């Protein structure tokens, strides 16, 4: 059955305008194919493209030549070669990333996300599944339901895909045996209901031979349908379901061509909106009504989920990027602490307590993640204790943001419940998250206003508060110089307080060790204490190695602009190790001290410190002099 079944629509030749009118009304279905290396995934996609006539003669000629040269199907066409795009993959015979393919049938246009089936699988499949309406889960008829079938199904369900197709492939290799197909479908049903998949469609196919792809195959007379394409053409793509939800539109851009026009541009995430509808702007909470729905094609009388529009409002209300315009009587919540499922996507493991950028809809905020409540083994679905998440790890975590964000549960509205985390230093996308619910305690702890404020306290002391943050390798001279600075300030009647690394670990932080997470928590607490002290009007001096840029920036962000003064005590490692005042380098070199900065843990040099002290160039006394001068001068 190598001849394409989808011959060109006769209408194209007979009446092109009628064909185009019909094609213009087609809807769009996005789906993902999930399978392991040998399940025949690429072959199936190649077959779909071929059968829907998306392969041209020149491509076919190249394909035939390639099939003979590097194909795995002997003299027959190897459809997998159509879709294995990058040169590196061709050589290794595997796909390494998410690729998107397109094809059209008489009823629908399709976008297929093709994801590879090896170790990077979770990351790639989650990426492909995030935009899919349907998942085709491939099973090799000879092998049945395997560990990876469970993994694929779990991930599809996790991302909220409503339509699952179980494609039992390679039926040609089991003699088109109905018993084999029935046994696999039954085994899958038992497993699927365990993870909450209540509905799926099982289809016996051969991607290689073309059985039950575009039409029912004479080889499986016992199968009454639908064929794969027929099913893909008929499932409900969910437009109506999204339109039935309450109206939400995250604001992307404020449109101000002149003083007379102020519009709010965005894509409607759910529901519908019309002029005169009452709306509420979140998180602020102000209400007004919609005046116009503006587009270049003229004003609309209504806009629905999925459309990109520009709204103007009846009142001049403060509204900017990141705000969400919502139905006034059914607004979403705003909160700053959540429970969420996180999928880790970076080589560098998650660091509990570290601040990441969180992007949800059009909101970008700083967020920290606590150590997971548990990690989920995607193969067994067991819940495991975990301190962090590694690449491809999935866990349930608590997330805190630095200000309230507007959200909905991912299960209710993925557009306001799905988010990504971005590393602040490398700018890499490190995780994808799905919000479950807000943690109520954030709403019950309020700020208490006090009558005496920080300016009044500082005025009484006749000084401006500041935080002198010393950073540098162990033995670089931080404590020595910090101590001299405080002595000088004291002589000058300045009110100061020196927070020393070792001393803090005897009390406030004695419960913390030296893992990466504990070191971050150590710095966070010191930052919070220093902030309270500057609120009290003091000049605070701290001496911590504080090796990570992200944590130093975290403390900087806690304080008013200009109060955080980063002082980099720049002593080369060789020099610090030569001094080795506390004998620590010797121990670290002997392997008795783990995670020692400079030896087996990195020190990230400050990029733009307010003050840099080169200790090979000046004495501690000169250094202290310079710092005091810069502070008070």
């Amino acid at each position, binding site marked *: 059955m190598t001849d394409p079944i989808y011959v060109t629509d006769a209408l194209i030749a007979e009446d092109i305008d009628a064909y185009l009118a019909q094609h213009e009304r087609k809807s769009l279905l996005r789906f993902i194919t999930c399978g392991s290396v040998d399940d025949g995934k690429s072959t199936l996609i190649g077959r779909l493209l071929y059968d829907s006539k998306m392969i041209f003669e020149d491509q076919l000629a190249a394909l035939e030549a390639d099939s003979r040269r590097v194909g795995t199907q002997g003299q027959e066409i190897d459809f997998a070669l159509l879709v294995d795009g990058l040169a590196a993959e061709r050589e290794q015979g595997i796909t390494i990333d998410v690729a998107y393919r397109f094809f*059209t049938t008489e009823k629908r246009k399709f976008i297929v996300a093709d994801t590879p089936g090896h170790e990077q699988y979770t990351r790639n499949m989650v990426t492909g599944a995030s935009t899919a309406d349907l998942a085709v889960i491939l099973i090799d008829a000879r092998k049945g339901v395997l560990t990876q079938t469970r993994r694929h199904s779990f991930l599809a369900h996790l991302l909220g895909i409503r339509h699952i197709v179980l494609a039992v492939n390679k039926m040609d290799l089991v003699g088109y045996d109905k018993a084999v197909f029935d046994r696999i479908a039954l085994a899958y049903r038992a497993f699927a209901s365990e993870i909450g998949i209540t509905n799926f469609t099982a289809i016996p196919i051969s991607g290689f031979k073309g059985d039950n792809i575009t039409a029912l195959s004479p080889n499986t007379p016992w199968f009454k349908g639908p064929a794969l394409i027929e099913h893909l053409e008929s499932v409900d793509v969910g437009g109506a379901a999204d339109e039935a939800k309450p109206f939400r539109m995250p604001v992307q851009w404020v449109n101000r061509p002149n003083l007379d026009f102020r519009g709010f541009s965005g894509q409607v995430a759910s529901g519908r909106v019309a002029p005169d509808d009452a709306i509420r702007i979140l998180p602020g909470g102000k209400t007004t009504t919609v005046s116009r729905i503006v587009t270049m094609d003229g004003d609309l009388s209504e806009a629905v989920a999925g459309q990109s529009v520009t709204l103007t409002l009846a009142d001049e209300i403060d509204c900017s990027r990141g705000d969400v315009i919502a139905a006034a009587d059914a607004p979403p919540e705003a909160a700053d602490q959540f429970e969420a499922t996180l999928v880790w996507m970076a080589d560098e493991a998650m660091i509990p307590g570290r601040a990441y950028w969180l992007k949800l809809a059009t909101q970008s905020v700083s967020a920290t993640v606590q150590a997971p409540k548990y990690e989920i083994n995607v193969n067994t679905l067991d819940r495991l204790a975990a301190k962090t998440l590694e690449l491809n790890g999935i866990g349930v975590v608590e997330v805190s943001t630095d200000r309230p964000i507007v959200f909905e549960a991912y299960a209710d509205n993925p557009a306001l419940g799905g988010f*990504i985390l971005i590393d602040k230093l490398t700018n890499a996308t490190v995780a994808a998250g799905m919000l479950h619910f807000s943690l109520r305690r954030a709403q019950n702890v309020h700020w208490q206003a006090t009558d005496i404020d920080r300016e009044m306290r500082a005025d009484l002391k006749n000084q401006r508060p500041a935080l002198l943050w010393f950073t540098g390798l162990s033995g670089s001279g931080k404590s020595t110089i910090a101590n001299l600075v405080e002595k000088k300030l004291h002589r000058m009647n300045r009110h100061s307080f020196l927070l020393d690394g070792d001393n803090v670990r005897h009390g406030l932080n004695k419960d913390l060790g030296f893992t990466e997470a504990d070191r971050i928590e150590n710095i966070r607490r010191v930052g919070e204490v220093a902030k309270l002290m500057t609120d009290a009007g003091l000049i605070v001096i701290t001496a911590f190695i504080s090796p990570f840029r992200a944590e130093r920036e975290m403390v900087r962000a806690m304080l008013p602009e200009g109060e955080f003064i980063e002082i980099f005590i720049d002593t080369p490692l060789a020099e610090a190790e030569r001094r080795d005042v506390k004998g620590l380098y010797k121990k670290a070199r002997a392997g008795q001290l783990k995670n020692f900065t400079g030896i087996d843990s990195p020190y990230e040099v400050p990029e733009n410190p307010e003050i840099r002290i080169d200790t090979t160039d000046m004495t501690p006394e000169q250094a202290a002099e310079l710092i005091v001068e810069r502070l008070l001068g």
Partner: protein
Amino acid sequence: MIDTLTHLDRLEAESIHILREVMADAARPVMLYSVGKDSAVMLHLARKAFYPSPPPFPLMHVDTTWKFRAMYELRDRMAAESGMELIVYQNPEAKARGINPFDHGPLHTDMWKTEGLKQALDLHGFDVAFGGARRDEEKSRAKERIFSFRTASHGWDPKQQRPELWNLYNARKAKGESIRVFPISNWTELDIWQYIARENIPIVPLYFAAPRPTVERDGLLLMVDDDRFPLRDGEVPVERSVRFRTLGCYPLTGAVESEAATLSAVIQEMLLTTTSERQGRIIDKDGGDASMEKKKQEGYF
């Protein structure tokens, strides 16, 4: 069940979302405009995305001086109509050395286009560049992200791309790094044509069949667009009814014999044709099988 929005509505809304999203993080965006049909659609979408404001970025044409004359005419007209600033960049070194497609082969594309683009982006300090590439064009494009991250030297590393989930794009970057954004990634050739028809978007007349002076050379039908075309011994331009499926430098772009003079006739021909869109372009073929991927790693769009 009837979906309120058609596939074209959904593609349009997605592209507009992408165009607007760039404005959140970009310091100095630019739209690369090649004057082809994909560029025409991208420009139209940008005008829709920001209406009633003009698109808040300039248009830039990285010129080779060897485009069809009709392309230069449409370019200038569309820039004026959209109210956008038009930047035309021509690599001064290629100009000084007289690099041309007749004498210099692959060097022509490398110097005018790949090098020219890098120079133009660096010269103006653009940090985000919109491009009209589509994933269905070619195999290595199928894996391209919508926000495609480039190093400070404009390199593309297919293994270091950021995962793209939902409609959440990560546009953060360090100083010197840049991002290429492809708002029409998910459009196919048919979608482009249908949208041009639906929205009445002006395109270069060369896409429609007309009698044009042509010569047959190395298996391609080339149009003699101006007197810089060096005729080989025995070559005489012949008037043929031809049109173009893609537009580039005229000496590198093969025409097809055709009578399709209207949009629907062009679409009809495209649907009935048996060869792929880029077949008339020489650029994909030099360097063998993986040549587009190689060009992208070197900084070609």
